[in-house]
């Protein structure tokens, strides 16, 4: 039942965004977020939104998938909007009396709330765009590449990436195993669903012990199998898929820089 879980939310594809080099994509995403919090001008907002929209179109990721990523964040959206709406001091445009208190909505509050909503929305859209067009594997590889300069100060970049890869590899296996163990214990009358917290926690023991025992056995066997294939850490290791930047990355970066310049110009030149 758990077998078909999609890890991350990668949608395979062949768009320019898919083909771009992962480390570059990660860096560009970071810049994207910085710019998002930097711009402060209606025209820039519009331009930024337009720019994002074009990116989504180019990626060929269905808009539905991006909206899906936003749905779980809905409460945070509402909370942020409400807090900003009522808590920003300024010129009151509307008062709502509640018992003894009066809640004041200010015009500054409306603007501030709208800005925060805008930022949250594009923050999620931008990062989703990264995870939707980059496989978890490329992502870990990308992170490894970006961390590599840090290995000089003893950050184990290869090991971190290897651990992430193995974790991704074993999530479906362990999920499936959890399902099987739950069924086996349920068949012996175990009850994972009813009772108070303490009872439930106790009921987890018959699930967790077999799961841990099996996980340790798996880890042991995997280590042997890796050793048998001459694994000896990151030293002297090569990679089949090198993170080489190509023409497509050059194009991507150029477009990004142009978009950035446009935004800066808008920010400076357009008075509001």
């Amino acid at each position, binding site marked *: *039942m758990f077998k*078909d879980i999609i890890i991350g939310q990668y949608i395979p594809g062949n768009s320019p965004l898919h083909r771009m080099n992962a480390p570059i994509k990660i860096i560009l995403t970071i810049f994207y977020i910085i710019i998002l919090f930097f711009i402060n001008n209606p025209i820039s907002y519009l331009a930024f939104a337009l720019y994002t929209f074009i990116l989504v179109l180019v990626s060929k990721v269905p808009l539905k998938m991006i909206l899906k990523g936003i749905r779980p964040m809905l409460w945070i959206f509402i909370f942020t909007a409400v807090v900003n709406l009522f808590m920003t001091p300024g010129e009151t445009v509307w008062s709502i009396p509640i018992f003894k208190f009066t809640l004041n909505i200010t015009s500054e509050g409306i603007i501030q709330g709208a800005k925060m909503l805008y930022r949250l929305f594009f923050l999620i859209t931008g990062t989703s765009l990264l995870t939707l067009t980059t496989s978890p594997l490329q992502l870990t590889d990308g992170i490894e590449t970006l961390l590599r300069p840090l290995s000089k100060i003893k950050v184990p970049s290869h090991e971190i990436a290897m651990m992430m890869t193995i974790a991704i590899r074993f999530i479906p296996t362990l999920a499936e*195993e959890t399902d*099987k*163990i739950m*069924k*086996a*214990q*349920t*068949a*012996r*009358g*175990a*009850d994972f669903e009813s009772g108070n917290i303490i009872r439930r926690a106790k009921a987890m*023991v*018959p699930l967790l*012990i*077999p799961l841990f*025992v*099996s996980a340790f056995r798996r880890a042991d066997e995997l280590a042997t199998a890796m050793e048998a294939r001459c694994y000896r850490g990151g030293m002297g290791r090569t990679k089949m898929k090198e993170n080489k930047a190509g023409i497509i990355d050059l194009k991507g970066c150029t477009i990004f820089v142009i978009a950035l310049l446009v935004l800066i110009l808008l920010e400076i030149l357009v008075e509001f």
Partner: protein
Amino acid sequence: MIKAENVCYVYQIGMPFERQALKNINLEIDDGSLVAIIGHTGSGKSTLIQHFNALVKPTSGKIEIDGINVTSKDADLKLVRRKVGIVFQYPEHQLFEETVYKDIAFGPKNMGLSDEEIDRRVRESAKMLGIKEKHLEKSPFDLSGGQKRRVAIAGVLAMRPSVLILDEPTAGLDPKGRDDILEIIKKLHEKNEKMIIIFVSHSMEDVAKTAEKVIVMNEGHVEMMGTVDEVFSKSKKLQEIGLDVPQITRLTNKLKDAGYDLPDNIYTVEEAAEAIKKLAGGVRNV
């Protein structure tokens, strides 16, 4: 008695992986039968047995165990799971206690039985499965593969189910371990007149040696059902769906095709040896 009527099961409805795992299953299994279920991986065998104790509920259709509708919304699941015991393929998925004794006691304990009753049942099922007294205080994790499997079966048997289901009880065991488990299945069948025993297997030889009735699953439906004779006599059909008959049956079929007068229902080496000796005796007497 187990009765399934028009049971259908659709896997992950509305998801991109939607698949019909069971298609219109109708079957009846009488009390006291020893039934083997055979079929490929993905033929729906595992899904079917999980329906018998309501671990999985059908998308449509009805299943009755001893007249109790296990598929209805208000079915007493605890009762159903006490009646129908499933031992899953890997004992590693269920053993967790410090000692073998405690592990076998897990099921009866969940039933809320008294300590004396639990003790009686643990010792009885351990004995039935040939688990030695001195092993009861050992950790289940120190046992061999075959022994672990016995403990797992004992743990379910201690709940005294009226239906005992074993999912590939011999998978991964060596020939000795496999023969031991098959012997135990036969013994359980003899000693429990009313209990239904169902086991899933990939090995035609094991099925021929052990079972009385066979259910053949293929692509989510029951392809054949009947006695061992009835099913294995349709060796062409079995081969068509990628299953096989025992090697010895293939040989005697070949001999029959060549014109030798052999009986139809030969599924074990002993039967074949008997029949061929008779035939050869005839030759010598002439």
